[in-house]
């Protein structure tokens, strides 16, 4: 008999059906991957096993853990099981720990509760497990509070809590989604080791097919609360018998069709450890447009800016830095300033698509904001279409802003929820010298909406009437309405489900071809960088440490930071190949 057996599980919250006839089983020492897009019911399945469902939830069917009927178990019985026989790790490490209790208290609490150990004994065991998850005593005494730890360290504490009593089953609900790829690889490795050491069953929930393939022995694919396919991981994913499995796998590795930009780079550049950027190798005279941008509407035409001649870089960043004052050490002593961006130089040619890749906190977003003139550099200069942006006021920035727009990550947060689409998408028209009439404005919005694959009459709706992917299209429509030459996209697809992600990447590629827009694509996801960019810059601790053609850099990374990123990045094809190889 399996450790966990779920049969015909159906779940309703109020009148809304969430799960239908779920079957799933996990043996001791086995890793089961539960995959699905948002809203597929992955987390609810996990919470049913824990019996931590919302009050209004009603479950039917059979869930048996180690011979215990979970759905019939009393709350007292569940309290004995939770934390002792079943441990759980959650998605968001930043909020998963109680901010007013030390990590020692939080780890020891469960140990004391379940074993009745004395405070000293429980703390001793807490110490051991914290050491085990990679938080050694010298740097992480039990008296640390959660706010003194980083996200990855906090997730280790959560894992320590879940594994302190060597549970038979560990449930990990998107344990690495909030972390960057390097941390993700470390946490996954830790989970795998813990599972092997204690012969735990692991239910790994993820939206990321590559992660699950790396980790799981068997895989269950959920969609709309129903199991689509279940089976041995490598076999399931190599055969792709079920159409939805195929669809997921295709979307995960989707590469949009696009002509590769004629690279202006003579070669590749990397600098270590004090990279001054990579534009030395740029030979502007070789720049070519891969596609001719369509003629811009007359009302949008700008007088040619000075320096916007043939071959000049579109964007030229020279030695920019952004320092933040350090936290005070005491009343009288200031800590050294923290340099989020440290002496960065590079340039982008018209029509070129460049990725800016790095771990979280490496300074990517700060750099993007400075380029967009939303944040002021503390040193250096940014030139865009030949004009210096740094130190200018809003009025003189207008022409530059018209040619430089932005797409953000969060399709929910990028729109004022109280405005209609027409007003939202037309917002950048504020930048035009001459304000268009109401009719012209509607015409321009309609054109932009059609450009991104939406309908013109969508402009009278509110953003909440659109799905996440459609909202990201709106975001892009807003960015291109002034026919900019550069779009800065800050993680534009990382909040989207894989199938939607593939569509949005296609749209980006298409616009790049048709309109000749240059991109600065900020991402932590190497698959995305590979799919959509010609050129990649690797950023690490405020510096650009490597730059070159995307494929070349990602296939043969030179700098330590790039090597770490590439090694950590999950890759579906490689993961399947390795699994098949292991099985011979």
């Amino acid at each position, binding site marked *: 008999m399996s450790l966990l057996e779920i049969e015909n599980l159906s779940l309703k919250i109020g009148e809304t059906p969430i799960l239908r006839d779920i079957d799933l089983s996990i043996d001791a020492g086995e890793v089961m991957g539960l995959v699905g897009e948002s809203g597929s019911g992955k987390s609810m399945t996990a919470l049913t096993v824990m019996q931590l469902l919302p009050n209004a939830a009603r479950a039917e069917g059979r869930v048996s853990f180690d011979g215990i009927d979970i759905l019939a178990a009393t709350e007292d019985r569940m309290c004995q099981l939770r934390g002792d026989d079943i441990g759980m790790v959650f998605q968001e490490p930043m909020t998963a720990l109680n901010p007013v209790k030390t990590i020692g208290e939080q780890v020891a609490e469960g140990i004391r509760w379940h074993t009745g150990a004395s405070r000293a004994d429980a703390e001793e065991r807490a110490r051991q497990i914290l050491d085990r998850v990679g938080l050694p005593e010298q740097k992480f005494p039990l008296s640390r509070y959660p706010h003194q730890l980083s996200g990855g360290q906090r997730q280790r504490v959560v894992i320590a809590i879940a594994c302190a009593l060597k549970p038979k089953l560990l449930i990990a609900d998107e344990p690495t989604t909030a972390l960057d790829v390097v941390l993700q690889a470390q946490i996954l490795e830790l989970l795998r080791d813990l599972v092997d050491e204690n012969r735990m069953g692991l239910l790994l929930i993820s939206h990321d097919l590559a992660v699950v393939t790396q980790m799981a022995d068997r895989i269950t694919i959920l969609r709309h609360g129903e199991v689509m396919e279940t089976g041995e991981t490598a076999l399931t994913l190599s055969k792709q018998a079920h159409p939805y499995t195929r669809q997921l796998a295709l979307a995960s590795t989707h590469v949009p069709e696009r002509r590769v930009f004629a690279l202006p780079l003579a070669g590749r550049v990397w600098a270590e450890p004090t990279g001054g950027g990579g534009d030395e190798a740029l030979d502007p005279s070789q720049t070519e447009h891969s596609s001719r941008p369509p003629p811009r509407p007359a009302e949008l035409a700008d007088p040619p800016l000075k320096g916007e001649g043939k071959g000049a870089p579109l964007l030229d960043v020279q030695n920019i830095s952004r320092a933040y004052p350090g936290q005070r050490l005491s009343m009288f002593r200031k800590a050294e300033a923290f340099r989020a961006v440290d002496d960065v130089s590079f340039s982008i040619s018209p029509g070129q698509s460049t990725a800016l890749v790095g771990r979280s906190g490496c300074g990517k977003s700060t750099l993007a904001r400075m380029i967009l003139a939303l944040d002021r550099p503390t040193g250096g200069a940014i030139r865009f279409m030949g004009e210096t942006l740094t130190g200018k006021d809003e009025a003189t920035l207008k022409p530059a802003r018209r040619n430089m727009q*932005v797409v953000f990550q969060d399709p*929910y947060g990028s729109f004022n929820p109280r405005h209609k689409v027409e007003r939202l998408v037309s*917002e950048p028209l*504020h930048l035009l010298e001459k304000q268009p009439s109401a009719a012209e404005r509607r015409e321009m919005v309609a054109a932009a909406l059609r450009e991104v694959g939406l309908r013109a009459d969508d402009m009278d709706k509110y953003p909440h009437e659109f799905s996440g992917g459609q909202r990201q299209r709106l975001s892009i429509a*807003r960015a291109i309405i002034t026919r900019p030459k550069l779009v800065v996209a800050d993680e534009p697809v990382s*909040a989207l489900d894989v199938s939607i992600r593939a569509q949005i990447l296609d749209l980006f590629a298409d616009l790049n071809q048709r309109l000749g827009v240059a991109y600065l694509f900020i991402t932590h996801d190497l698959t995305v960088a590979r799919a959509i960019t010609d050129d990649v810059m690797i950023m690490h601790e405020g510096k650009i440490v490597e730059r070159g053609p995307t494929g070349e850099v990602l296939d043969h990374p030179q700098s330590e930071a790039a090597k770490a990123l590439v090694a950590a990045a999950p890759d579906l094809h490689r993961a399947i190949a390795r699994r098949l190889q292991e099985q011979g």
Partner: protein
Amino acid sequence: MTLPVTEFERETFGSFVAKAFANRSFVTGFAITSLITGMALLSFFWTPYDVTKLIVADRMQPPSATHLFGTDQFGRDVLSMIMVGSRNSIAVALVAVGIGMGLGVPLGCWAAARGGFVDEAVMRFNDLVFAFPALLSAVMITAIFGPGAINAIIAIGIFNIPVFARVARAGALAIWPREFILAARAAGKGKALITVEHILPNIANLLLVQGTIQFALGILAEAGLSYLGLGAQPPMPSWGRMLFEAQTLMMVAPYLALFPGFAIVITVLGLNLLGDGVSDVLDPKLRRQR
């Protein structure tokens, strides 16, 4: 990366009204508030008796069919006085909320938009006003500039300023880092324009809720001031003053203290329920079931 599925926080006016009228607090509060407001408006045209006429023959009558709430020591009809008194309470509290919002909201938005020194200065101004217990200062102000409804309004209004400044600032600070604000900045919009177009519509619900709370507090404060003889002056009836006069007669006519008190409690209760209802409807997060 799947984001937590958030309820998208947009409701058209129509859906807001529909949700509001399904909310018990809102319906009760709305009914009570309409009733009191209606009563105040009615009193301009009609009251059962004239409150300025003193009819000694009718003095101190307990509640009866002719005088529903009885009469006071001068023979005035208590129901009529409560009706006329409601005008005073509502006017004072409403204008005081207006003063607080009119000055506090721009101040709070300004602090949030500028940050740095301006923010610090606005916060310290708030600290300063909060350091004076509100009622104490209201007593001082009305005592210095003379008792009366106008001075009561000013006294209560001043203490509404930092309250609204704080709410507006906190709300605005939560909106500023949002991505749609960055997008507006990338569209070249300045801080003032962004505040008007993006910040204010998104903190309006917070301000509305705070407005009903301050309205209710204003009614209580006005009652307190007129109880001390610092509010509206006779012959204008006011609820607080009626209670003051009733106190000496409590042995013989306890009903005199009862009805004005009920009027205050019901009005304040109605406003608070209305505020609760509005915030329930606009911010379902707080009602979220675990």
